[in-house]
C-alpha cells in the first residue's frame, strides 16, 4: 500500500539516519537512510516507515498549475465554478 501524500521533515536525529515527519500536525518517526542529504523542511514520500524519495516541489507546483489551468478552461467553457469533490464520477463533470 503506497501512501502518495508527501510528509515534511521536521526533525533529524544526530545519527542522520532517523527523524520525524509531520502530516497535518500528526508526527511520525521516519527512516532517512534511503534519501540523499535529508534536510529539515524537505518533503518526502514515506513507504513502510522510510523516506524513499524527496518531493521536487517545483515539479509538484508545475503539475498543480497545469491542473489549475485545465480547471480554468472548464470554468470558462461551462460557466460552472470549480468544485472540489471526490470521488470523481464520469458523466457531467459537475459536483
Amino acid at each position, binding site marked *: 500500500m503506497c501512501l502518495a501524500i508527501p510528509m515534511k521533515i521536521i526533525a533529524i536525529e544526530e545519527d542522520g539516519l532517523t527523524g520525524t515527519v509531520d502530516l497535518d500536525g500528526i508526527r511520525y518517526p521516519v*527512516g532517512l537512510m534511503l534519501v540523499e542529504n535529508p534536510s529539515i523542511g524537505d518533503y518526502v514520500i514515506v513507504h513502510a*516507515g*522510510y523516506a524513499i524519495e524527496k518531493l521536487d516541489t517545483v515539479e509538484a507546483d508545475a503539475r498543480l498549475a497545469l491542473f489549475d489551468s*485545465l480547471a480554468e478552461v472548464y470554468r470558462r467553457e461551462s460557466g460552472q465554478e470549480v468544485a472540489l469533490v471526490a470521488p470523481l464520477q464520469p458523466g457531467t463533470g459537475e459536483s
Partner: protein
Amino acid sequence: MDGFRRLAAAAPFRKRLHNHGQTLAREGRKVQLMEVCGSHTMAIARFGIRGFLPESVALVSGPGCPVCVTDPGYIDAAIDLAGRGVIVATFGDMVRVPGSRTTLARTRAAGGQIHTCYSPMQAVELAQKNPASEVVFLAVGFETTIAPVMAMLDTAIRQKVANLSLLTAFKLVPPALSALIADPEIRIDGLLCPAHVSAIIGADAYQPYAAKQGIACVVAGFEPLDILYGLDGLVQQLVTKNPHVENQYSRVVKAAGNPHAQRIIDHYLQPTAASWRGLGTIPASGLVLRQEFSWFDAQQRHNLVVQPGRNNPHCQCGEVLKGKIHPAQCSLFGVACLPDQPLGPCMVSSEGSCAAAYKYS
C-alpha cells in the same frame, strides 16, 4: 492535495480521451492498457476512472499487488515457523492470505505469536524486546518495499541484533512485465507504470518496452488527475503511433531512480528465480540474500524450505493478475469469496483487483 482532485480538471481529460477514442474507432483500432500497481488499481476503482475511457480503450489490472502474487506455500512456511514458537512479524495484509490449509490470522487465534507492523523497523524492536526468542520478518514486496526492508536489515546488523531473520519473497516488477508482454494470450499496448516502484528503479527501466516492443509507457502518480493524465498520455502515444517512456510523476520519480536505495538493495541481495501466483516461475524476478548474509535468511537459520503450496482450485486470481479476466468473471467473486471471507489473495489485500472491484462496484 486537493489540487490533484479537482473535478473540473477531469472534464478536459474526458473530452480528450473521447476524441482519441473517436480517432481509434475511425481507424478500426482497439487498444489495451494495463496498470501494474495496486495503488493505481484502487484509485481507478474508487474514482470510477474506467468510466472516462472510450469503448476503444480497455484498461486491465496487472500483477501489481505483492501480497496477491505470493505463493500459498510461502504462507505455509510462515505458519510452520509460528508453530515452532518463532515470533512472526509481518505487514498486516499478509495475515488473511490463504495458505494451502489455513491463514496466519487463524494461527494467531490459536495462540501463534504473529505481530503486524507498519514498518519493518518494528521487527527490530520486537527482536530487541524478546532476546530469548527468534523473530522472523515476512519480507514480501516489490522494489518500493525491498529498499526499506534492507535499510532495516542494515540497522539490525549495525545494532548486532542476532535473533532476527527474514523469510524473503521479494519480487521485481520489470521481469514480470517482460513475462506478461511475452505471453501470446495477453495483449498490452500501453503500460501505466507504477509510481513508487519507479521512484526506486527509475523511469528509464521501462525504456526497453517502448524501444524494443513498441509499448507506450507512462509513469503516473496516484491522484485521480495524475491517473487520468497518464491514461491520456498513453492513448495519445498510441493514436500518434509514437511509443516512448513519459515520466509524468517527475515530482518524485527520476530517470535513473534512487541510487541510495538501489545500492543498499544490491549490497544485500542477488537475483533469483521466483514463483508468482498466476504467472508461474519467472527467471531473475526475485531477490534473495547474498551468501555472506545467509545468517539472516530464515530458511537457512530455521532449516526450512518453502515448497509450492496448493491454491483453491476454483480461484481464478491467476487469470485476474494477468488481466485475462475481470474479477466479476470468477465464479467465486462476491458469492463464496468476499472481503471478510476471502478465498483468493486478490480479495484479501485492499490493493487486490477483486477487493477493489467488490468495494467500489
